[in-house]
């Protein structure tokens, strides 16, 4: 067994009785990290975070400390926490907000102190009302406890946190769309470069947008030091990573593992983790890092779960969502459902994404229904190429944000890895995977 006994940094309280309450949090050493942080200078905290080398846990994997270092030197500075988790099959931030909201509050405060923020906004996906309730309730407790607001714990540091609900739009997880949404507008991503939110963000002010899991690590980092965090994992992939395992495993769920020390095989087959593929079925393919990521075949089972090794295999660790699919899975249907999602969630600003998504969805649907042509395979790749020229990884971009380029990977992976299966749909005039068929009537997108 290769699973290490690394500490659980962000999940150790999940599942404990009333883990979302101040009493439970304080009983487990809660807010000690904030107290320690307030005794340090902001630069000292920034140094610790740089030493820890925390890669952003939202999907892009950019170093949090480096992001903080990009802040333009003007005031005010805002901190926005991205809790808009909507990447299909990703459900880790949902669990962290619902199960340990005080940890999120404490981490946000440490971050805000380090970057000199004047206000914190926690943007929580609107479809997570229980998470919003628990976070708001925890925040009320934290105000009363003196951890938020005026002169926190008697220090000279004062700041407010506002819990802000979204209203149902995947694109608002993209940080500039999130800021537009937080300004009370449609969630249209902003053009960048040149101006990233650290230079021009919320209300035009320098803004840091950090993911829920990213800042949830901060209390531990402050208490244990960046060196201890960086001692976990390997290379750039330091610390632990919360992996959301879904799909055809016996034991789906969130697992916090030391990064770079376990493999996909461990995660999927270890009896204490995924427990293997359901019903003794055969593993067909893995979506390794959220549905935007290129798929990996079973021959990649032994690569380690780290940012670098998954990238080296031609995909990405992304949001930490891992979806193994078994041999009963139709890859056309899987690609269709993923593309349908992106088409539905396209904000519509850029033609390749708005129109290309519709094309891909319609072509995939007709292939799946047995009405496709052999030339559809080339047509699909051609549309993919128009959305993301070269259909390579990392993807080239013809659009303002990466939503459009998130469509081709699942289409291209299916055609490249399972070309015969696509052709069978065409030649036999039906999907070879009955009876789990597409509904005759589909809801309008």
């Amino acid at each position, binding site marked *: 067994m290769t699973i290490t006994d690394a500490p*659980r940094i962000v999940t150790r309280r999940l*599942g404990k009785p009333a*883990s979302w309450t101040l009493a439970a949090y304080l009983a487990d050493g809660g807010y000690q990290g904030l107290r320690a942080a307030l005794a340090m200078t902001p630069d000292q905290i920034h140094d610790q975070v740089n030493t820890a080398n925390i890669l952003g846990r939202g999907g892009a994997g950019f170093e949090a400390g480096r992001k903080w270092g990009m802040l333009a030197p003007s005031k*005010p500075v805002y901190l926005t926490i991205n809790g808009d*988790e*909507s990447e*299909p*099959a*990703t*459900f880790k931030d949902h*669990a962290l907000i*619902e*199960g340990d909201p005080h940890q999120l509050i404490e981490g946000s405060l440490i971050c805000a102190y380090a970057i000199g923020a004047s*206000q914190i906004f926690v943007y929580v996906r609107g*479809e*997570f*009302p229980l998470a*919003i*309730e628990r976070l*708001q*309730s925890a925040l*009320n407790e934290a*105000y009363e406890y003196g951890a938020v*607001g*005026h*002169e926190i714990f008697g220090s000279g540091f*004062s700041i*407010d946190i*506002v819990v802000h*609900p*979204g*209203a*149902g*739009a*995947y694109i608002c997880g993209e940080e500039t769309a999130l800021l537009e*949404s937080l*300004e*009370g507008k*449609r*969630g249209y991503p902003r053009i960048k470069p040149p101006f990233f939110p650290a230079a021009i963000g919320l*209300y035009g002010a320098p803004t840091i947008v950090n993911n829920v899991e990213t800042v949830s690590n901060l209390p531990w980092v402050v208490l244990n030091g960046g060196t201890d965090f960086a001692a976990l994992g390997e290379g750039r992939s330091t610390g632990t990573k919360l992996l*959301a395992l*879904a*799909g*055809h495993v016996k*034991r*789906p*769920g*969130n*697992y916090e593992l030391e990064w770079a020390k376990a493999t996909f095989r461990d995660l999927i087959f270890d009896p204490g983790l995924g427990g293997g593929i359901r019903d003794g079925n055969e593993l067909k393919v893995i979506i390794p890092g959220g549905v935007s990521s290129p798929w990996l075949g079973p021959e990649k089972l032994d690569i380690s779960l780290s940012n670098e090794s998954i990238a080296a295999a031609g995909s990405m660790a992304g949001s930490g969502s891992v979806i193994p*699919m078994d041999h009963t899975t139709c890859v056309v*249907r899987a690609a269709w*459902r*993923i593309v349908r999602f992106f088409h*539905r969630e396209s904000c519509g600003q850029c033609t390749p994404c708005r129109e290309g998504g519709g094309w891909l969805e319609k072509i995939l649907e007709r292939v799946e229904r047995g009405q496709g042509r052999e030339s559809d395979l080339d047509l699909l790749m051609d549309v993919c190429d128009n959305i993301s020229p070269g259909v390579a990884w990392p993807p080239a971009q013809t659009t303002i944000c990466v939503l459009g380029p998130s469509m081709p990977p699942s289409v291209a992976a299916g055609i490249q890895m399972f070309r015969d299966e696509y052709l069978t749909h065409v030649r036999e005039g039906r999907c070879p995977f009955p009876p*789990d068929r597409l*509904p005759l*009537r589909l*809801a*309008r997108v």
Partner: protein
Amino acid sequence: MPRLNPGNLHRARDLIALYPEPRSALIPILHLLQEQDGYLTDDGMTHAAELLDLASAEVRGTASFYDMFHFEPVGKYLVAVCTNIACMLQGAYRLLEHAEERLGVAPGGTTSDGLFTLEDAECLALCGNAPCVTVNWRFFGDVDLQGFDDLVDDLKAGRLDQEVPPHGTVSRVDRSVGLAATGAATGAVAHAGAARSQSHPDLATHRSTTATASMNAAHLDDHT
């Protein structure tokens, strides 16, 4: 027709006070309107526009971007069946088909008794308990066909009223203080929050979601 009632108007003003720019309160205020009326009415959106000094078209133009906002009445219970990849792999389309048969409506439709609106939803982030369903955005995981029927029966009989608040309710807990960093405004929202819970005692009772948290934790316990 429905504008914000006096209590919700107070809540809206408290929300506006939380942001450097008033317009940031737009989406939270639209949630208040939807909580009050079950959907967004023209008069309600006009009221929001007045409060924020926006044109009504700006309010509607913003609201229409977001899937959670409805511009026509929906059923008492908005039943959203996730059909995205993780749930699809666990038979979500079969479940959706069953839901259509059981409720007698297609996705987007509302039953003639006004009780249920059915939706074909995108990923709801409960993928460890696929397939999942939300009712007024409250989670129910590992829903098989029988489980769906039981859920409908429970809803009809009012057995889940504690766990499933009326459609549009995002949070049953309001903020207990205004902005406090300057040392000025503590307790500013007490007038509006008084009638509402500020630390809801029933937060622990959501059966499915709590079960999910435990299940995940059990997994976490196992591997060390």
